[in-house]
């Protein structure tokens, strides 16, 4: 590798032209084949058994995500104008492309099944809006008398009515989302319109995340440029370094595009990652160049460049490889966009390493080293010549003087982190991604306050014998399951076959409350259902039971989509599983809420295995680089500490483990070990060159310690920009990556450095061999 870089030195212009040429090719590739994938379904691992089952059940029971439009009137929705507005909204929605075949549920579309003196009356609450208030009052009366509708489609206080649109198979698009929002805007007043439902939350999330990241990208670029200018103290160096990271981003996207991989929302993080991480190699290179020119004034361009390559290329290569490993470890994820994110960022990182190693020396060969602007103190040249007396050296001495302090501090930190780690909880909620005072959270809370809930879980009961779900014993057990579920916190409503049967039984027996129970014979059940097929909407039936009556779907509506709520319902249902098993019925789950729970679990599992994998790869790489298992172990100290602190802080600050916060830990391992690699390399070399442990420690801490400090400072300042994001998950990513870098840096220069020094006798022995 060194030879390759040194050979390239001879042809600086060729190198630059080639880099530029490939970059242009990449730009061409991006321009010609770039494709954005916004369909969230592509994230789902289709072949996972839970998904396969859920998808099949979704199809069998026509389980679809729904958009809820809550129409809130200051007094009562039962007035001619508001009742007409429900029709208008329905018409508007059905006129939308993509919603033409959709089922709409509201008091306008619903059937009122009513007991009459000698039988049953099935008719719509209204077809055309009433002309006067009397007409509206009659509708109000009818709604109040039907507990299948009151509380479900109109709130108990009668101030809010729901229009529920089931999304057709084609799914939800950003465009549809905008159009529905525009209908809500147009139809508002005097009513307030609230648009809620899982597709809206997902849609907003899918739109907001990338938009925010796209805004963050240029900001990160700007901040990194400013920091680089301060650190490198030269415009030419800053421009060159920025060109490298921008080019690496372009190459990564160019390759993606050329391979036909579309852009996913998570891919938007690639530039931020590459810009913040990619500048590190240049920092170390320039640090060495300044050190060398300080020590050997008047050195030739080639000498400067060759020295920098000799000293830096090996640790930088391994620093790059470990970072690459951190990203590549994401391939263990079951989620393709995450896999792609890992792979292409890894590629970009390697490109930025290669380009730095080629272009920085080429720049020196072509244009010279330039003059480094001296800061006021002008400590540059002088300080670098006497590397053993600077701040770094004093720091190294201080550490040696008071080793206990660092050890105790580390022990306390790990103990506190361990306590915090025990409190880490997982949240797969989509809604938790938004600020608690955002419109979408408020709307969701409003609908949840007045109705059964915006989130749902489908409990699928399966038997082997046909007509099982006509058996009154089975139906009573289902009914008991539902009644119990309603006692759970945040469960607002349940709907199943029993809901319809009880209503029919009650209505066919002159609305006698004694008949609000499951009928006693399976024949009666069958006959009621035939009646319902005749007079109601049979599709309603096939949403709760299959045609063979071999499986049934119990929908549990919840007022929150967090893991705690869904988990509580699943635990409750599982506790009843034995009772159902006795009747030959097995229980499974379906619906998008359940799928995202499984999905997030998979991501978390994937992240945990990525994390393990990245630590192992890093250990192997570093051991190989140093030809020493012991040094491999030493280098993992900072990353292990940073992992502990990462999860500890999350637990202590009540930051849940989510798909985005889990993503970063394995990445952080790959980046965090870089500091150790540079420090260990130069400490060992100094040991060899100087032969004195104290001097080697002082030298490496002040020389490499400085570069590592700058490296960490730049990465942290890049990621800290994301703290200004309007999107909470991006803020969390920014903060946690910064925290990881800070911990890894501090652990490297303190505890790891001390451990390193303590094994110096062994290192010297090895070096003498």
């Amino acid at each position: 590798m060194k030879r390759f870089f040194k050979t390239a030195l001879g042809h600086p212009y060729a190198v630059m032209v080639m880099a530029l040429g490939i970059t242009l090719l990449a730009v061409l590739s991006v321009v010609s084949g770039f494709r954005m994938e916004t369909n969230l379904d592509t994230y789902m691992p289709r072949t996972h058994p839970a998904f396969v089952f859920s998808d099949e059940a979704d199809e069998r029971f026509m389980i679809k995500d729904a958009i809820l439009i809550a129409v809130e009137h200051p007094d009562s929705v039962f007035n001619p104008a508001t009742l007409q507005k429900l029709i208008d909204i329905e018409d508007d929605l059905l006129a939308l492309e993509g919603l033409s075949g959709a089922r709409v549920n509201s008091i306008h579309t619903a059937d009122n099944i009513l007991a009459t003196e000698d039988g049953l009356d099935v008719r719509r609450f209204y077809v055309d809006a009433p002309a006067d208030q009397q007409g509206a009052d009659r509708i109000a009366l009818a709604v109040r008398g039907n507990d299948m509708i009151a509380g479900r489609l109109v709130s108990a206080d009668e101030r809010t009515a729901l229009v529920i649109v089931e999304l057709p198979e084609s799914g939800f698009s950003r465009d549809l989302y905008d159009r529905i929002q525009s209908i809500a805007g147009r139809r508002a007043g005097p009513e307030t319109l609230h648009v809620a439902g899982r597709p809206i939350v997902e849609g907003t999330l899918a739109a907001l995340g990338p938009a925010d990241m796209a805004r963050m990208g240029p900001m990160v670029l700007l901040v990194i440029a400013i920091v680089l200018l301060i650190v490198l103290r030269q415009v030419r160096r800053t421009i060159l370094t920025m060109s490298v990271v921008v080019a690496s981003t372009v190459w990564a996207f160019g390759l993606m595009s050329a391979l036909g991989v579309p852009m996913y929302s998570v891919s938007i993080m690639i530039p931020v990652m590459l810009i913040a991480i990619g500048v590190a190699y240049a920092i170390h290179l320039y640090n060495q160049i300044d050190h060398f020119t300080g020590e050997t004034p008047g050195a030739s361009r080639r000498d400067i460049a060759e020295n920098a390559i000799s000293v830096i290329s090996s640790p930088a290569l391994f620093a790059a490889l470990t970072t690459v490993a951190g990203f590549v470890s994401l391939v263990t994820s079951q989620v393709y966009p995450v896999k792609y994110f890992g792979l292409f960022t890894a590629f970009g990182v390697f490109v930025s390493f290669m380009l730095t190693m080629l272009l920085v020396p080429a720049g020196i060969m072509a244009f010279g080293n330039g003059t480094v602007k001296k800061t006021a103190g002008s400590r540059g040249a002088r300080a670098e010549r006497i590397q053993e007396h600077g701040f770094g050296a004093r720091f190294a001495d201080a550490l040696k003087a008071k080793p206990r302090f660092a050890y105790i501090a580390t022990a306390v930190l790990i103990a506190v982190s361990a306590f915090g780690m025990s409190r880490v909880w997982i949240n797969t909620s989509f809604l938790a991604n938004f600020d608690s005072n955002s419109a979408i959270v408020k709307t969701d809370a409003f609908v949840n306050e007045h109705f059964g809930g915006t989130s749902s879980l489908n409990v699928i009961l399966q038997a082997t014998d046909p007509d099982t779900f006509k058996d009154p014993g089975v139906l009573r057990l289902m009914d008991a399951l539902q009644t119990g579920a309603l006692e759970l916190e945040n469960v607002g409503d349940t709907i199943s076959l029993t809901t319809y049967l009880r209503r029919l039984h009650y209505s066919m027996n002159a609305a006698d409350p004694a008949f609000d129970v499951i009928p006693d014979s399976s024949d009666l059940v069958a006959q009621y259902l035939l009646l319902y097929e005749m007079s109601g909407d049979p599709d309603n039936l096939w949403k709760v039971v299959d045609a063979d009556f071999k499986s049934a779907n119990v929908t549990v509506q919840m007022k929150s989509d967090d893991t705690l709520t869904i988990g509580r319902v699943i635990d409750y249902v599982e506790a009843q599983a034995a009772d159902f098993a006795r009747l030959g019925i097995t229980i499974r789950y379906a619906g998008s809420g359940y799928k995202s729970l499984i999905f997030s679990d998979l991501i978390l599992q994937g992240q945990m295995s990525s994390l393990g994998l990245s630590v192992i790869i890093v250990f192997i790489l570093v051991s190989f680089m140093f030809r020493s298992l012991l040094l491999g172990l030493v280098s993992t100290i900072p990353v292990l500490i940073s992992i502990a602190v990462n999860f500890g802080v999350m637990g202590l600050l009540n930051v849940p483990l989510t798909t985005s916060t889990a993503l970063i830990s394995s990445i952080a391992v790959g980046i965090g070990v870089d500091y150790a690699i540079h420090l260990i390399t130069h400490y060992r070399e100094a040991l060899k060159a100087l032969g004195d442990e104290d001097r080697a420690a002082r030298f490496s801490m002040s020389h490499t310690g400085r570069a590592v400090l700058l490296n960490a400072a730049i990465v942290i300042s890049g990621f800290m920009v994301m703290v200004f994001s309007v999107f909470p998950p991006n803020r969390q990513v920014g903060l946690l990556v910064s925290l990881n870098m800070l911990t890894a840096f501090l652990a490297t220069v303190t505890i790891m450095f001390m451990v390193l020094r303590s094994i110096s006798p062994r290192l010297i022995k090895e070096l003498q061999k």
Partner: protein
Amino acid sequence: MTATKRTILPALMLCLVFAPALGAQEKTALAIMTAVYERPQPSDMSATLTMTLVDSKGKERVRSLDQRLGSFGGVDKKIMVFQSPADVRGTSFMNWSYGQAGKGDDQWIYMPALKRVKRITSDGKGGSFMGSDFSYDDLGARHPSADSHAILGSEVLAGEECWMVESKPQDAADGYSRTVSWISKSRLIGFRRDYYDKKGALLKTLSVLETRTMGPYLMITRTEMRDVQANHRTRMDFTAIRLDTGIADEQFSERAMAKGL
């Protein structure tokens, strides 16, 4: 809608009669549809109807019921008694449909498990018939004056030269935006009808699969409605057809429902 509809025999039978061939040239679309509508029909009928519902995955559900139809003083009466599946055996529905405008159908249900006849009032006409792909409206013969008609062209269907007649409802609130019927030029019977939804997309296709000549009548004995949007279909097979046997008005009573046919 009820006023412009005759629910007798065409309902469930789509009974069509031989009529003298009309000169294709002179016929207007309205005249064709009127001729189809105004053919003579049996005064009563009984038959066994086997309804096969096929869902999108090809799974079949079979329902079999006996039915009896007759017309008395402008009231079309019908009783249907389920024979299978076993758990609904004996469940019967009676329907009285009136000629007067604005008067909805009367319906009763008898459930053996309840041992009681209950009256059902409903406003649903566009709704599904017994959970099938046929709506109640599809089963009734529509009066030609309810639509405006146009001849779209001619086409050979099942070996017969047919007119393609497009019918658009006069009432915008109607369930379909338009239908296209294939009417045999020689026999003036419909062989196929396409139903278009409110957005103008093809929704359902009705096909006549089998016909049988019975005395002066040409009876359709097998027909299928395919919902092309939901990808399911319903086949209706009529067997044991008996026509003009003189079924009395008293045979359409709550007592008869409970007793079975």
